[in-house]
């Protein structure tokens, strides 16, 4: 009898211990869903996975008993492949949080899935402002930049400088359409006019036909609503066709440091565009970027997408650490992330709005002349800064249901 009672006690104790462990589940799986092989792989890709690893190491959570795993996959810039991987990650691999997810087409598709499965997406790669507007979700935070901000900053600055007639060269998918739409709105609002648009397929190599049409339009500004390899080839071929020397101005609506690096300063000099992160902004960005670059195979400096992966995850780790465990309810974690102000060495102090928009300053840069650059990756001059609360779409204009209620 005595034995039976002690067995009962032991059993109860074990059950309680197991229950206690479940209440403090400290395991997290991070999925870096990105373009590992295509035209955007330099600005996300392996660099995003490295940034995620660095965030895990710097978070100090391992010492507090957390077990954090990272998985990475290539969505090949195809929304169907992206969602298939995402579905498998959530259902089979128990991934809690998606980061990077560049390419607006993929991001919008994964956005729906993440909402349906109550997972989390910290999107640092996609540009479309729809992620925090009509398609906003309580499970998604849009971290780095968006088309509204790019349009607002670069578009407005160029119209103010006298560029009042525009012709758009647009990548023919969700991202290009959103960037063109948002920029055109800013141009018109600032007193300018859109003369025409040509939509090219994603990943085109030859832009001469499109550039000729832009040239014939006589618009003062040729706005490039494309990204990555499409933009670099456009810029290179625009120089060849004498677009800039003929008096038209080329506007890079979305340009990354990797694009400038690959073009070389000779071709890229003088271009104006907006980013929210540059490695040489301050001591904090320089220290991180140096560590990052040393671990990259080609010694590349981080792009704003990769920096965003780090910054977003650092805030996520702070939040789940404060929660003490059980980080598997997406809506709950994202709500907590929105409550606390953000602060990290890369993007400085910021906040996350109700619609999922992360706010931080946007910087208007100009590419240096070769003679002004002191060494590799010394490419940008800071032209202007827009504070976070003015850079992004104001909540009063938002169509996000999370805001309206």
């Amino acid at each position: 009898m005595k034995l039976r009672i002690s067995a009962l006690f032991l059993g109860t104790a074990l059950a309680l211990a197991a229950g206690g462990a479940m209440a403090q589940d400290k395991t997290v799986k991070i999925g870096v869903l990105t373009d590992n092989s295509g035209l955007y792989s330099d600005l996300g890709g392996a660099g995003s996975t490295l940034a995620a690893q660095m965030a895990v190491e710097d978070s100090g959570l391992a010492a507090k008993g957390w077990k954090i795993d990272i998985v990475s996959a290539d969505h090949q810039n195809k929304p169907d492949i992206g969602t298939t991987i995402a579905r498998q990650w959530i259902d089979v691999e128990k991934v809690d949080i998606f980061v990077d997810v560049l390419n607006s087409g993929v991001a919008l598709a994964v956005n729906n899935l993440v909402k349906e499965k109550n997972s989390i997406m910290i999107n640092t790669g996609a540009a479309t402002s729809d992620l925090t507007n009509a398609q906003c979700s309580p499970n998604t935070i849009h971290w780095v930049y968006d088309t509204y901000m790019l349009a607002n900053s670069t578009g407005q600055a160029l119209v103010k400088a006298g560029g009042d007639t525009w012709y758009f060269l647009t990548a023919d998918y969700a991202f290009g359409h959103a960037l063109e739409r948002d920029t055109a709105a800013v141009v018109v609002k600032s007193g300018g006019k859109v003369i025409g648009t040509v939509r090219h397929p994603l990943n085109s190599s030859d832009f001469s036909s499109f550039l000729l049409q832009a040239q014939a339009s006589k618009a003062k500004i040729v706005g490039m609503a494309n990204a990555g390899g499409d933009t670099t080839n456009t810029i290179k071929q625009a120089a060849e066709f004498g677009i800039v020397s003929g008096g038209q101005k080329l506007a890079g609506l979305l340009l990354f440091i990797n694009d400038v690096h690959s073009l070389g300063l000779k071709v890229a000099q003088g271009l104006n565009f907006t980013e929210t992160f540059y490695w040489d902004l301050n001591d904090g960005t320089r220290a991180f970027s140096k560590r990052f670059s040393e671990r990259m195979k080609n010694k590349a400096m981080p792009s704003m997408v990769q920096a965003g992966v780090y910054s977003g995850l650092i805030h996520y780790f702070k939040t789940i650490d404060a929660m003490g465990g059980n980080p598997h309810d997406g809506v709950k974690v994202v709500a907590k992330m929105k409550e606390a102000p953000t602060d990290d060495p890369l993007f400085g102090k910021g906040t996350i709005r109700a619609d999922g928009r992360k706010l931080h300053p946007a910087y208007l840069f100009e590419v240096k002349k070769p003679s002004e650059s002191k060494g590799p990756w010394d490419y940008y001059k800071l032209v202007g800064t827009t504070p976070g609360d003015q850079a992004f779409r104001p909540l009063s204009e938002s169509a996000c249901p999370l805001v309206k209620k």
Partner: protein
Amino acid sequence: MQALYAQLLVGLINGSFYALLSLGLAVIFGMLNIINFAHGALYMMGAFCAYFLLNITGIGYWPALIIAPIVVGIFGMILERTMLQWLAGLDHLYGLLLTFGIALIVQGVFQNYFGSSGLPYAIPDELKGGMNLGFMFLPIYRGWVVVFSLVVCIATWYLIEKTRLGANLRAATENPTLVRAFGINVPRMITLTYGLGVGLAALAGVLSAPINQVRPLMGADLIIVVFAVVVIGGMGSIMGSIITGFALGVIEGLTKYFYPEASNTVVFVLMVLVLLVKPTGLTGRAA
């Protein structure tokens, strides 16, 4: 109307790349019966070769036009000797799969080391600038590409169709045993032919380096279109691929003007139409 002339000219310029690449493919298929899926990767290697020559050894564009095709051609001949020759006499599918695998490996290696954004290669000083033709601004370099490719295409066609060497080559593929009986080294001829086809791809790569970024995937993006050109022209037909190359460049240019969204697919629509009417391609002979 002026804009239309401009698009025609631009189409012709792109057509010259299609022609050079599909010519190499047609030579290799016509003589070796190999569907060379590595052609795009070899084109990319030509561009990279020009980049390395300039940035490592300081050798400029003009010598690169000769050196790069030779270097990449030798690489091609090594491929042929070590791998492709074992497929002689087997179904086309084996060659296609092997060369596709080679292309993936080569592209993967380059992408691993050089990323996806590409590397800059400037237009040589002698060909900088452009001229105003009245209806368009023609960059001198693009004009040079059209003229140079036309010359290379015609020279290659002449070499294969009109010279004794070409006649031997064609005979060797028709009946290797008989040609060997005349004391001609057939395997060596085949290797050299593969080298020639590969050299043409590399040459197109060097020509394209100053226009496009030198990127690991530059060939992968182009190869499918070039295959469509070869199929439309008639597999293995030298003249067919040259003419179709230029013609499709022009048609694609016009599509970019009238309905840009379809510019990536128009070639395939044409391919379907041609194959429905004439399964051997426009100038192809029945197998």
